């Protein structure tokens, strides 16, 4: 004997009307037969039999309203194999327990109580992978190491070439990366060395080739997907977030996507709103991604090599305005800079300036200006946006008691907002002034030269903000 239960037809249904029976006592039913019709305030649905047998008894007559989910509505003389009755409320999943009103008990209910551990876990304390057990630091340089003047462009190229020599699973795909030698010449020479199988010119089809890259990564390869600029990656952001960042979690750890999405990010010059945007905050928001935005050539090389080796999806934000700048790169066998570690680029006691990518250079210039007025700024280069090395920022603020964040992106919900929140949480008592944020004005980037200059962060604005938090303006 098997009870047929009043089914829930949606995650939020609690009760319904048994509108109609299509079977009566004595009828034989087999699985798949429509046996009844049920109405809720939202819909009318048919109920199909799962078990086979002869209807012994109708327990709830048609027309009955407010029949609770899981109430026995009929009895079947079956062949066995029936499902056990629903578990009691205390052993059922929370979203299935009765007593919650329609529309209040959905699986994604934000009011649903999270696990206890989740409640007590300090916010932002992530998995072990992003909370390094040992302090991360740059590799030790041998005595008298040769430093080679290298452009950021060539440093990135060298990083890719070295990793492609090292690992046959690494390949580069993107628009104009092969025969054209890269729209910004970052991939210059790679086609000659590695051939068209490993340096792949794609059609102009960002959504598609990002998806192909992620699929190839799911199969175990290590693609480097170049976006001509990150502005165009908005077409592909679904694959970066939904397919790459979330799949490890959704597969219970089975499917890894070791992939690097890289290309220029932020504003170049006079290319206006659609071609000038900083995506650090956008990608930095997403668990499952690592986000890197280097400033100089040594970091560009060392961090790109680390990104290619990383088993997780990495968004690697470069800057067109830095590609041609030369910096010292140590001439060592295998220069790999750890992901997730900020770098203090200039020491000082007066004010902490935190930035990433091109804005690090602006901060270093601002620091020189500030020094003329007797303010010694400490410049922290984040290098990695996620996981963010907030400890280095906090240590600096404990020393300077003042914080200015600088980014090319917009202010609201931005990288600076996150840093200010973290520093306020972790070093509130050390702050002598509210943190200040320098960022792009809250408008789409204008084309006109004067308006563009007004919109972008500048050395003057950084100096002004630093003086303001120092109460010296």
């Amino acid at each position, binding site marked *: 004997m098997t009870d047929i239960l009043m*089914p829930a037809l949606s995650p939020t249904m609690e009760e319904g009307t048994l509108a109609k029976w299509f079977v009566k006592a004595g009828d034989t039913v087999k699985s798949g037969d429509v046996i009844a019709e049920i109405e809720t305030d939202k819909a009318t649905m048919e109920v199909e039999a799962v078990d086979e047998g002869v209807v012994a008894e109708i327990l709830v007559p048609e027309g009955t309203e407010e029949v609770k989910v899981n109430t026995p509505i009929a009895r079947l003389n079956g062949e066995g194999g029936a*499902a*056990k009755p629903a578990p009691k409320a205390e052993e059922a999943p929370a979203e299935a327990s009765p007593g919650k009103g329609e529309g209040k008990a959905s699986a*994604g209910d934000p009011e649903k109580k999270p696990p206890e551990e989740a409640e007590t876990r300090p916010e932002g304390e992530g*998995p072990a992978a992003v909370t390094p057990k040992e302090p991360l630091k740059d590799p030790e340089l041998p005595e008298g190491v040769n430093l080679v003047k290298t452009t950021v462009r060539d440093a990135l190229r060298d990083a890719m070439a070295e990793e492609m020599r090292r690992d046959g699973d690494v390949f580069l795909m993107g628009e104009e990366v092969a025969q054209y030698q890269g729209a910004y010449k970052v991939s210059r020479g790679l086609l000659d060395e590695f051939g068209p199988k490993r340096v792949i010119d794609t059609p102009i089809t960002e959504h*598609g080739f990002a*998806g192909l890259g992620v699929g190839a990564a799911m199969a175990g390869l290590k693609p480097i997907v170049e976006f001509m600029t990150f502005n165009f990656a908005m077409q592909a952001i679904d694959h970066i977030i939904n397919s790459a960042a979330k799949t*490890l979690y959704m597969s219970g750890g*089975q499917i890894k996507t070791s992939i690097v999405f890289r290309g220029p990010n932020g504003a170049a010059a006079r290319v206006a709103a659609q071609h000038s945007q900083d995506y650090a905050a956008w990608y930095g928001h997403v668990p499952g991604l690592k986000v890197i935005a280097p400033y100089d050539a040594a970091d560009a090389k060392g961090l790109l090599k680390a990104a290619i080796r990383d088993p997780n999806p990495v968004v690697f934000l470069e800057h067109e305005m830095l590609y041609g700048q030369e910096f010292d790169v140590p001439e060592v066998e295998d220069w790999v800079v750890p992901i997730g570690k900020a770098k203090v680029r200039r020491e000082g006691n007066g004010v902490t300036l935190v930035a990433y990518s091109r804005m690090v250079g602006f901060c270093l210039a601002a620091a020189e200006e500030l020094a003329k007025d007797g303010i010694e700024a400490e410049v922290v280069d984040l290098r990695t946006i996620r996981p963010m090395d907030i400890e280095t920022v906090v240590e600096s603020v404990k020393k300077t008691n003042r914080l200015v964040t600088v980014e090319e992106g917009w202010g609201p919900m931005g990288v600076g907002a996150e840093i200010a929140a973290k520093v306020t949480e972790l070093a509130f008592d050390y702050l002598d002034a509210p943190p200040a944020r320098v960022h792009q004005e809250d408008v789409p980037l204008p084309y006109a030269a004067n308006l563009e200059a007004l919109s972008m962060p500048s050395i003057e604005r950084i100096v002004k903000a630093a003086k303001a938090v120092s109460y010296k303006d």
Partner: protein
Amino acid sequence: MARGQTASAGRRKTTSAPRRAGGKGHNSSPDTGRDELLEYYRQMLLVRRFEERAGQLYGMGLIGGFCHLYIGQEAIAVGCEAAKNPGDQFITGYRDHGHMLVAGMDPREVMAELTGRIGGSSKGKGGSMHMFSTEAAFYGGHGIVGAQVALGTGLALANSYREDGKVSFAFFGDGAANQGQVYESFNMAAVWKLPVVYVIENNQYAMGTAIDRSTSEVELYKRGISFNIPGEQVDGMDVLAVKAAAQRACEHARGGNGPYILEMKTYRYRGHSMSDPAKYRTREEVDEVRKTRDPIEHVEHLLETNGWADADALKAIDAEVKKIVADAAEFARTSPEPDPSELYTDVYTELRA
């Protein structure tokens, strides 16, 4: 973790000779042997009984969120599985339970994922739409309509890169066929001659929108014409027709000729998801398909008319399948919810030391 514990949906390869290409609309006849046909019957029945039970568990509140059942479309996954080689990949959208079962995933871990338990294939963290098994070469289980087409083409890119002779099967519906990334993928697959078989499961409704209301050319096998991708229309309710077409497609793709499109004409008996009352079509329409085109009854008929199985033999298979499904349901009901400590696992992969 119950992974690989039961034999249940065992992987079985047909050894029968491939059918000659017959173009569209050809009739199937049982040139596949008795054992193979019985196996397809068993697999299709497993999917159907599994889905019926999933629907029941949903009704009991044990399964949350969205739950899209494969009932009616069983012949497609089973026929493609019969045609593929071990290691060839499957990837599909959110109506994925059937593909996983025939690919060889343990019904227990599929059902336990539906109930959000630690014994599920994703430890309860993926749910109905997000399951994967590298062992079974099943790459999801994707909730974004059409995403699996680009990802599946990427699997084929990896196959081509490694020159390992594998073919990727990317399954998607008539609804997904209108997504832009499908055509971005078609183009790259054709330009680079990637070994991918695009299987369009045309069940004629994109959620509640009938195909002729959403789609200017409803013959979806023609969708590859401007990419020079051959396509054919197949009776997706006939497992032997599906298998024969999939063999042709596989041969084409594996032979270095690039992608191939199979439009499977099929029908889903249930709503788009469990909470869809399916009022956009009549009960008569559904009943008509069930009565005249049911893929399982079709095989039943073939088995009986060939004298390969009598009613008792079929009943025995049904009993075996029901036992597997009952066991899976019991496991899914009793497997514990994931430990709260699982909240922060699997967000990132640790770097190898």
